[in-house]
């Protein structure tokens, strides 16, 4: 029984890591109709920036002097800002020029952008082709209940993920800027006519999405403890799959999709004998299955992103 509970916990954690990425995909698609193929790589950049900033602390000898909770907060904030701006920078240079072009162009440019990001990290970060250890920035306590070991940092990661996603949800649905984003997703020309500066709103959307990705990178890095330059590729595909299965453009859908994917992967590797190498096969077969029967995703596309 305890084994089962443990497996459920792992499945939930895996789902939350996918959810962080898939919510970003859904945001970009819902708001501006763009599939940002390199979103996973932006998350990877978040993880790496966490490592770099932590390293800076160590480098400047501050590590002993600054209380660790402060270090953690600084890492979160710095990544927040850094990746937010980096993501927006990518949008301005790579995605914006193609606004008038066929949508598929953006797909290719983001694919190429992904290549550039991955290769840059691999080449310019020292020992970039090797896995990198993510620093332990969350408290490492354990609780024991019977045979189960609960890790405090995993719990924190899970809670922070939920918080982040909720914040974003509230932002989109309860603020004026969020209203503007929703307006643009409905009809960009009408929104412009209403006095909304769509250019800036798009930039803001990317800023938010990238922040989410950056922080996702830190959380995923903390959970997996090891990151590599290419985790963004598969992570992006899984996050995209989760978003689509749930219904692209639908917030709740992204979460549902992540749960579906995370649970199937985890449970098949644990409970189907000889199933572990096929866990992705199962996950993707279920994806196809859902799409065949629910062609617009489980919860369908909501236009606009509803309250």
């Amino acid at each position, binding site marked *: 029984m305890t084994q089962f509970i443990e*497996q459920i916990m792992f499945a939930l954690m895996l789902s939350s890591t996918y959810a962080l990425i898939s919510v970003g995909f859904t945001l970009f698609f819902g708001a501006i109709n763009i599939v940002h193929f390199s979103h996973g790589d932006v998350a990877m950049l978040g993880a790496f920036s966490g490592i770099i900033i932590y390293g800076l602390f160590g480098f400047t000898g501050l590590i002993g002097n600054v209380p660790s909770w402060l270090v953690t907060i600084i890492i979160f904030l710095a990544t927040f800002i850094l990746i937010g701006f980096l993501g927006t920078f990518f949008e301005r240079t790579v995605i914006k020029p193609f606004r008038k072009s066929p949508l598929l162009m953006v797909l290719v440019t983001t694919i190429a952008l992904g290549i550039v990001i991955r290769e840059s990290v691999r080449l310019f970060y020292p*020992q970039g082709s090797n896995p*990198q*250890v993510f620093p332990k920035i969350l408290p490492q306590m354990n609780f024991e209940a019977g045979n189960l070991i609960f890790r405090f940092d995993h719990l924190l990661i899970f809670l922070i993920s939920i918080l982040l996603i909720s914040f974003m949800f509230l932002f989109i649905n309860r603020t004026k800027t969020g209203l503007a984003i929703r307006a643009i997703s409905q009809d960009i020309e009408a929104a412009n006519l209403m006095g909304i500066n769509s250019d800036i709103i798009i930039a803001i959307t990317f800023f938010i999405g990238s922040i989410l990705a950056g922080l996702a990178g830190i959380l995923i890095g903390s959970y997996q403890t090891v990151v590599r330059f290419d985790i963004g590729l598969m992570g992006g595909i899984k996050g995209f799959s989760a978003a689509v299965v749930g219904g692209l453009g639908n917030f709740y859908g992204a979460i549902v999709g992540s749960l579906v994917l995370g649970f199937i992967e985890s449970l098949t590797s*644990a409970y189907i004998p000889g199933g*572990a*190498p096929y866990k992705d096969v199962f996950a993707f077969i279920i994806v196809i299955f859902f799409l065949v029967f629910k062609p617009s995703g489980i919860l369908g596309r909501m236009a606009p992103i509803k309250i």
Partner: protein
Amino acid sequence: MKKFESLLIAVLLILVGLLFIDSPTVFSAEKKLVKIGFIGPLTGPNAAVGLGARNGADLAIRQANERGDLPYKFELAVLDDASDPTTGVAAATKLCTDLLVAAATTHFNSPVGLATIHVFHRYGVPQMFWGGIHPDITNKYNYPEVTRICPNTLVEHNNLAIFVIGKLGYKDWSIIYDMSSYGKNCLDAVKPAVTKAGARIFSEDGIAVGTVDFRPILSKIKAIKPAPQVIYFGGVVTEASLIKIQMNELGMKNLYTGVTGLDSETFNATAKEAAEGTLIIGKAHIGESSPFVKAYKAAGYKEYYEATGPYAYESVNLIIDAIKKVGPEDKKKLAKMIREMEYRGILGITQFDEFGQTLSGGLTVKVSQDKKWLLWEDSEYAKGKRSIPGK
């Protein structure tokens, strides 16, 4: 748009101008230029290993040129196979049709090697494998051009069985392997090796390369009663270190073991404290104070030499030694010479069997102590000061 375009045009004009610059020629008048080819994964998921090997090969070339005792100037012709067979075949074709190339040292991924051996055989160019352990590379076709300087998995796993089962007496095993050619080969080698030595296999789990979350599988193994003493992993460093980290997270105290795929300082650097007590069959022990490591550091390469760097280094030295004896022009003679060589170097003595497989490869037993791989004999575990997990 205007500014971007003018900038681009300026850059392009400069580039076109470069076309007309005479590139300096590489060889001097007196010495004959001899190229030795290198093919390995310089991009892609195995880039760390490929770059380390390239640097090892490069070091050997540099040293040979510095010694200057031969009438040749050596150059390393480096090509990337990106772990992809088609790219590998293109690279092999390029090297084999370049008349200045005397021989080549190749590959980390066996599937690429299995495709390129036909190319090297067709053109008769000697090919030495510094990585890529699939038995078929040497045994299936027995091409006279092909040799392999690293040990193959059958020998590795026999050694593992002898040590862990024979010496330590651990008979209860759980096996995890990755779904690459290498991982499959490990699985196919470890099962007969350990069952022959009297072990029982409690579980077998394959994982896709690139998996990062092993907790479901480990949790399942944790629930096996009686608990297996050994958890074996057949695969490479990234997954191996993640497994060990998560094993510790789950409080699992089984002995973690593997073969040369784990023999890399990256394992220790990634798993850190969690790596403690991991036992493996390792590649030849190249100590920090050995001339190879000193020269490697002095040359200032950006990447670690990983486990395969010394093998690539040795392979180039062996090739150069063979060239010293029979010259670079007659490739058939060169291939024959390489096959018959008995070479003494950083790996000990290297000699090839009738299929071109090295007889020794310098295998050792290593244990991870304080985040470093130490020879078993030198460790505190052997002396009984630390106790090996899995009891």
